[in-house]
């Protein structure tokens, strides 16, 4: 029997033949990064490789690193291993890593969503023998509605608030979700304010060529009435700070896949939950897996054990890798209360 192309090491997912890691959680000499969320891209490695579009976000998040970038579909050869990256549809520059060695193909998905959101390059299914997948929303209760439906819900909520002179505060993850939301907002309703943790990432998106509507810092809007008609994008961490106090009368909401469950919305006692995720839902995970034609599936994070058990019952050869992905509060990988991974 041949050795596996990728194995689980204490530092992370390791490719023996190529002597590199994918999204390692400890410092290693060579790291391929699927995307810039903090549980997948960590500091301290000697060399990094990522998709070209992820470059500026990675510099922003990891500081002055040694980074090589390649385009989607571009192939590099390294110690007899062919490595290429393909869009994962998750955030700017998010990539699946395709590794070919001695006629065998493995794909590491990173985080992905299958619906085209119109601002990130769409997920592309890649044929492979072994597919290493996430399962953040790997339960059948997670079933997303089309983006256009959620878009209408959000704009209607904003419109209703604006008509009653109530600022709309929309909490969302700063990298990826905030920019996706920006692209969905109906700017005729009022001005859009971006929190200081979100605006620098908007800038990077714009520099990378993604058209986003104009955003303001809260201090730029001095007219009280304008502020009442505004929609404010803020990271979840801002919900517990004084930053919010400046908005008198407001309605708040949170945009996340976790909002599918009422209890999760209640835990934060926010007015509205919009079910919008940058991860695949249950059906999305299953369709993505089927389209790879892989026989062997390895689940890295989310409802890993449950999802792997289900895949086994469906005839796949499925197992789990116990990784450190999803251990983070500032992106969609973890529920608000840290407690569902079983």
């Amino acid at each position, binding site marked *: 029997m041949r050795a596996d192309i990728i194995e689980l090491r204490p530092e992370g997912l390791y490719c023996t033949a190529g002597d590199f890691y994918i999204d390692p959680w400890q410092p290693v000499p060579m790291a391929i990064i699927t995307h810039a969320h903090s549980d997948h891209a960590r500091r301290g490695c000697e060399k990094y490789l990522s998709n070209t579009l992820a470059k500026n976000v990675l510099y922003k998040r990891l500081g002055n690193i040694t980074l090589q970038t390649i385009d989607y579909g571009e192939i590099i050869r390294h110690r007899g291993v062919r490595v290429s990256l393909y869009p994962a549809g998750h955030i700017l520059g998010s990539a699946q890593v395709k590794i070919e060695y001695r006629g065998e193909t493995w794909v590491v998905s990173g985080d992905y969503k299958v619906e085209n959101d119109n601002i990130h390059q769409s997920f592309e299914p890649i044929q492979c023998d072994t597919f290493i997948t996430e399962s953040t929303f790997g339960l059948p209760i997670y079933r997303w509605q089309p983006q256009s439906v959620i878009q209408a819900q959000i704009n209607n909520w904003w419109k209703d608030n604006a008509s009653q002179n109530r600022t709309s505060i929309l909490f969302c993850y700063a990298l990826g979700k905030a920019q996706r939301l920006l692209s969905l907002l109906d700017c005729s309703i009022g001005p859009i304010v971006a929190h200081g943790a979100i605006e620098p990432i908007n800038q990077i998106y714009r520099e990378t060529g993604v058209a986003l509507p104009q955003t303001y810092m809260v201090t730029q809007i001095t007219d009280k009435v304008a502020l009442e008609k505004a929609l404010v994008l803020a990271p979840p961490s801002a919900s517990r700070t004084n930053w919010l106090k400046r908005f008198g009368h407001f309605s708040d909401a949170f945009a996340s896949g976790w909002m599918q469950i009422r*209890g999760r919305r209640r835990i934060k006692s926010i007015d509205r939950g919009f079910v919008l995720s940058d991860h695949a839902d249950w059906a999305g995970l299953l369709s993505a897996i089927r389209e790879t034609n892989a026989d062997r599936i390895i689940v890295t994070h989310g409802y890993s054990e449950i999802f792997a058990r289900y895949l086994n019952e469906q005839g796949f050869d499925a197992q789990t890798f116990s990784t450190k992905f999803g251990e983070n509060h500032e992106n969609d990988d973890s529920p608000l209360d840290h407690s569902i991974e079983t």
Partner: protein
Amino acid sequence: MREFVELYMQLDSTTSILAKERALRIYFSTASPADSAWATYFLAGGNPKRLVKTSILRKLVNLSTTLPSWLFEESYESVGDLAETIALLLPLTPMGTTDSLHEWMKNSLLPLRVIPSEHQAEYLLSLLQKLDSTGKFVCLKIITGSFRVGVSRLTVIKALAALAEIDEKIVAQRIVGLVGINHIPTANDFLTLIQPIDATNNINQTGLPFPFFLAHTIPYDVSEMPEQLGLSQDWITEWKWDGIRAQIVKRGGEIWIWSRGEELITERFPEIANMREHLPDGAVLDGELVVWSNDKPQSFAMLQQRIGRLKLTSKLLKEVPVIFIAYDILEWQGLDLRQETLLKRKDLLNGFINANPIPGLKISPILFADSWQKLSEYRGESRQRGVEGLILKHKFSQYGIGRTKEVGIWWKWKIDPFTIDAVLIYAQRGHGRRASLYTDFTFALWDKPKSEPDRKLLPFAKAYSGLTDAELREADQLIRKSTLERFGPVTTLEPTQVFEIGFEGIARSKRHKSGISVRFPRILRWRKDKSIYEANTLMDLQSFLPH
């Protein structure tokens, strides 16, 4: 149904009371009386008895999806609510019914009761396919008898009172009958609810009680009381009786006994119902039902024997005699007295009862004290007197509704609970807001003293609340690490943690493994400083039993 589901969504998608009141006003001003009656019923906390068994709901999922049952259970555990889980799993369908709420109840849901159980799942599925996903959720919540939305009954009362332009107190009183258990609300009920007041109906001609006025836990220490509450002499202080809070309503020759849960319990207490001979018409008394023998109140556990028994034998009536301890009078000669001062009401009550003693009726004595310190000493006697502590009511206070504080406050000053250090052995996930956290814990005590070699942990109480969210999260992490096995929703743990458990009452019990039942157990503190070997024993618990 569409409009009611829409109302549900509006109430559920805001935390602002004003927005909720507005949504209610809009709904009630457009809905028909028959629909409004059902809406009031559900919003004000009425719940029809569970319409189908849980096993039927699981069968329904099997019929309509291809999910293996273990996956359904995992989903349920993650969501924490059965109705919500099913609504999230059933195939999506658009809203396909034009039935209004009352038509839906009458034509679709209530018939479930008469459909043989082997056909219920198919029938229910055909109903649910006519609803969109929120509709499915609302309908399943009704079916499981667990419909709840974030409005208090008071908010509903306010909205209806504003709409009908009548006093909130009148609406509050009338609503009691509408939400009663086993009641099927009708258009007529709703019209009566919002009917304008005139000479013939300002005091209820039926047996309805007034909404109970409830006490708040006193947040002050005895040293703060002079500053916070003023002179102790301005407060009327009584014992806090450990029984069933009840109102006795005597009107038109008939008598009704209502519990605080707005349940009619007249038949349960024939000796109290006998007061029909002695009380004049147009009288409502507020007080407590307690078991009384040997000239003192007996434990709540004894009262429970009376409630639990289907048949009241004369032997039981003799062994467990119940009296009514009156502490307030809310109606007299057909007049609503709730806006009179407590002092005046007490005078009336004492005057009447002293002149006309009634068997089985006692007046709750007033404790005279010239200082807060003296009251604190009275409180210290509570346990030996078989009461729960003191209750303080300002002498000029009116009788409010529920937990309102506008017209006067009642403070309960309870004795400190019994406490015991116990070991955590089982955990179960919570529901609703804390659906994904472990919130229900079972605690155990050692069955033998420390010196014995082979002692075991014996479960003695289940406690729900008392930990902060941060502690719950920490407990959650710990539970994951110490899980021995999982059986359904229950996780068995390796015993490692000690908690201080407080409880209010204690009694012998044949139904409990430990032989003892405790009342209102709750977690007081996490004793991280203690090892499980230092936890208390069953003998320690037994020592609290009254001799």
